[in-house]
C-alpha cells in the first residue's frame, strides 16, 4: 500500500461513501456541543421531526455564556440564561449527556473532552466551534463546524466533506528555557500567516513536538485554526496513551489493549508525502507577544512593533497602520514598553493545570503591579480548578492579587460579564486578538501563561527570567 500521512489514514478510516467528484460522506465518532451554536440545530431537528442518530456520541456543556463569579447560581442576563437553559432542555429531551452549570465537571468544551477521555486517538471529532482543532493533539481528526453541520451530524452521524491537502509543520531541535507551546504556535503563525494553512490539514511533528506533554500539544493544535487550518494534528504516541489511561471514557480491560494496538498506527508513514512542508528550528523561538489585531501580527519579546513607514506594499502598510491605531501603539516602540491594564489567564488554549502551574511559578512570592486594574485566572474546568486548589496554586494567585474564578470561556470572547472596556489593554493567554474580541474597543496581546504572569507582576511585557 502507498505510504500515507496521519490525515490520510484518519480520513480513509471514516469514509462512508465517496461521490465521483470527490465529495465524501465522513462518519463522526464524537460530537461535542455547547450552548451558542446548537440551539438552531436542535430547533431544526424538532421542526423536521428528526432525532439524533447517536445521542451517545454527544457530550454537551455550557461554557461560552456562563458566569465565572458564582457557583452555578444562575445567570443574570436573561438572554444568556435562555441559551443555557435551552441547551439543558434539548439534552434532556434527546437523552444527551450534559455537564450542567452546577456539575463539578463543567468547563470549556475543549478542556473537558480530553479530560473525560471523550477525546480518543483515531476519532473524528466535531463541535460547532472553530477551536475543535484542539483535539487533534490526540492523533484524531478534529475540526470546527457551522450550525447547519451540527444539525447534519446530529441527524446523520456524518458530514459531507472534501479531503483537504496535507501540510506538515516540523519543529526541529529543542526549545530554550522559558519558551512554551504557546510561543511555538504563535511563532508558526507569524511565519506562515493566518491563511497559511487554509485548505490544509496541518500535522505538527518533529523533535520539539514529540517532547511536549499532551497539554502543550493541545495548545499547539488549538491554534491551528489561527493559522487557517481547520484541523491540526499530532501523531499518537506513548505520551498520548499515558494521558488517556484510566480516564472515564477510556476503553477498559481487553478493549484497552486492542485500542492501544490500533492507535500504534496513528502516525504519518516515514516516507509519506506532504503537499506543503514548513520547517522551523525550535531553538530559535523566543517568547512571543502579538502587537496587532490578527494572530500573525506577532514578534519576539525583545523586538519592536513594526513601523508602517518601513513597509513598501501599500495593502500591508495600511493593514499595519490600521492595527497600530486600533491598538493605540506608537509605530516602532519596544514590546517591553507596552503596559497592559488587565491580565487574563484562561481559555481553551491555556487554562489546563500545566498552564496554571507555569503562571503560578512566575507569580509565586510576587505581587501584581499597582498599574494593573484586574488580573483574572479562569481555570478551564471544574476539575482543573479543584486540582489547582489541591496544589495550592489558587493561594499563590490570590496572594499576588489575582482573582480566582470559576471555569468558562470568560474573557476569551467576553460573552459573559468578563470583558474589556473600550481602550483597555489586556495581556491574554487566549487565541484571538481581533478587534473587539474581548469587548468592544478592547486591545488584546496574546501571550503564554508565563508571559501573562510576568506582565502582571512587572506591569509591562517582559520575559519571566528578567523579573
Amino acid at each position: 500500500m502507498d505510504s500515507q500521512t496521519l490525515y490520510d489514514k484518519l480520513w480513509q478510516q471514516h469514509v462512508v461513501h465517496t461521490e465521483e467528484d470527490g465529495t465524501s460522506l465522513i462518519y463522526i465518532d464524537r460530537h461535542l456541543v455547547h450552548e451558542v451554536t446548537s440551539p438552531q440545530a436542535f430547533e431544526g431537528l424538532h421542526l423536521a421531526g428528526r432525532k439524533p442518530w447517536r445521542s451517545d456520541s454527544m457530550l454537551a456543556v455550557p461554557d461560552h455564556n456562563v458566569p465565572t463569579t458564582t457557583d452555578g447560581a444562575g445567570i443574570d442576563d436573561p438572554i444568556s440564561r435562555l441559551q443555557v437553559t435551552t441547551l439543558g432542555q434539548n439534552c434532556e429531551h434527546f437523552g444527551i449527556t450534559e455537564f450542567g452549570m452546577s456539575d463539578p465537571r463543567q468547563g470549556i468544551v475543549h478542556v473537558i473532552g480530553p479530560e473525560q477521555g471523550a477525546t480518543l486517538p483515531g476519532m473524528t471529532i466535531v463541535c460547532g466551534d472553530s477551536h475543535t482543532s484542539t483535539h487533534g493533539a490526540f492523533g484524531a481528526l478534529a475540526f470546527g463546524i457551522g450550525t447547519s453541520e451540527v444539525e447534519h451530524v446530529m441527524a446523520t452521524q456524518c458530514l459531507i466533506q472534501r479531503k483537504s491537502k496535507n501540510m506538515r509543520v516540523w519543529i526541529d531541535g529543542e526549545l530554550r528555557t522559558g519558551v512554551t507551546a504557546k510561543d511555538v504556535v504563535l511563532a508558526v503563525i507569524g511565519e506562515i500567516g493566518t491563511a497559511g494553512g487554509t485548505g490544509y490539514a496541518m500535522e505538527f511533528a518533529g523533535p520539539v513536538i514529540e517532547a511536549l506533554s499532551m497539554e502543550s500539544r493541545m495548545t499547539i493544535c488549538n491554534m491551528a485554526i489561527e493559522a487557517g487550518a481547520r484541523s491540526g494534528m499530532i501523531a499518537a504516541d506513548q505520551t498520548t496513551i499515558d494521558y488517556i489511561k484510566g480516564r472515564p471514557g477510556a476503553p477498559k480491560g481487553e478493549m484497552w489493549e486492542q485500542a492501544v494496538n490500533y492507535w500504534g498506527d496513528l502516525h504519518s508513514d516515514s516516507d509519506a508525502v506532504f503537499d506543503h512542508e514548513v520547517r522551523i528550528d525550535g531553538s530559535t523561538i523566543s517568547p512571543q507577544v502579538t502587537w496587532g489585531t490578527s494572530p500573525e501580527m506577532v514578534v519576539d519579546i525583545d523586538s519592536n512593533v513594526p513601523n508602517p513607514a518601513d513597509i513598501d506594499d501599500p495593502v500591508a502598510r495600511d493593514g499595519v497602520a490600521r492595527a497600530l491605531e486600533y491598538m493605540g501603539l506608537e509605530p516602532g516602540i519596544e514590546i517591553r514598553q507596552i503596559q497592559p491594564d488587565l491580565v487574563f489567564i484562561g481559555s481553551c488554549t491555556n487554562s489546563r493545570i500545566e498552564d496554571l502551574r507555569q503562571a503560578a511559578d512566575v507569580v509565586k512570592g510576587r505581587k501584581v503591579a499597582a498599574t494593573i486594574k484586574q488580573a483574572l485566572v479562569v481555570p478551564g474546568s471544574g476539575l482543573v480548578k479543584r486540582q489547582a486548589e489541591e496544589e495550592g496554586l489558587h493561594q499563590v494567585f490570590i496572594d499576588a492579587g489575582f482573582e480566582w474564578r470559576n471555569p468558562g470561556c470568560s474573557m476569551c470572547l467576553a460573552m459573559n460579564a468578563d470583558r474589556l472596556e473600550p481602550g483597555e489593554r489586556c495581556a491574554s493567554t487566549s487565541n484571538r486578538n481581533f478587534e473587539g474580541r474581548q469587548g468592544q474597543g478592547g486591545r488584546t496581546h496574546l501571550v503564554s501563561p508565563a508571559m501573562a504572569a510576568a506582565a502582571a507582576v512587572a506591569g509591562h511585557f517582559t520575559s519571566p527570567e528578567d523579573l
Partner: protein
Amino acid sequence: MEAFTELNGIVAPMDRANVDTDAIIPKQFLKSIKRSGFGPNLFDEWRYLDQGEPGQDNAGRPLNTAFVLNLPRYQGASILLARENFGCGSSREHAPWALLDFGFRCIIAPSFADIFFNNCFKNAILPVVLNDKIVDDLFSRVAEVEGYALSINLPEQTITTPDGDHIDFDVEDFRKYCLINGLDDIGLTLEKSDAIKEYELRRKTEAPWLF
C-alpha cells in the same frame, strides 16, 4: 433553503483583508437562539458609533456615516466584494445568517476561510473566489462607477460586468447542485442510511471502543 441560480445586484466593497466573523457579527448577538434577525447587526461595531446589544431597537442608533455599507451609493447591495481570508476566526454560522439577512447573496474575494466558505453554501450564499488581479480591478470599477452591478449566473458559472465582459468562476459540482436546487443536505444524506449502518457494523468490529 432558497435556491440560487442567477443574481443581478449592486456591489458593495469591503476593502480590508482578514475580515473575521467577530467583525461580521459581534459575539453579544450570538446569544440568540434563532437563525433570523441578525441583519441589522451585521458589522455592528463598524456600522454604529455606540455599542449594540441584542434585543435593542437599532433604528435610533447613531450611524458611523463613513462606514462603507452606510454610504447611500451602496444601499440595496446584494454582492459583497472582499479581500483575502474573508470570514476567518470563529465558526459561527451567525455570520452568513447576518449577511443573508442584510441582503447579500454573493461574496467575491481572492480567498475565504474554510469554515465560513462552507457555511455560506448551507445558507444560499454563493462565495466566489477570483484571482487578486480581477478582484483589484473590480475594486477600482466599484469605486469609479456609482451603482456598479454584476450579473451572476451559477449554472453557467459566469459573472457578467456592465461592460459585457465575462468572468468565469469555479464551484464544486455537488455544492452547485445543492444551491441551484435549494437542497437540504440532511435529506440527501439520509438516503444513504444503509451505507451508514453498514459502516457502523464494520467499525464495531474494528474499533468497538468507539461505540
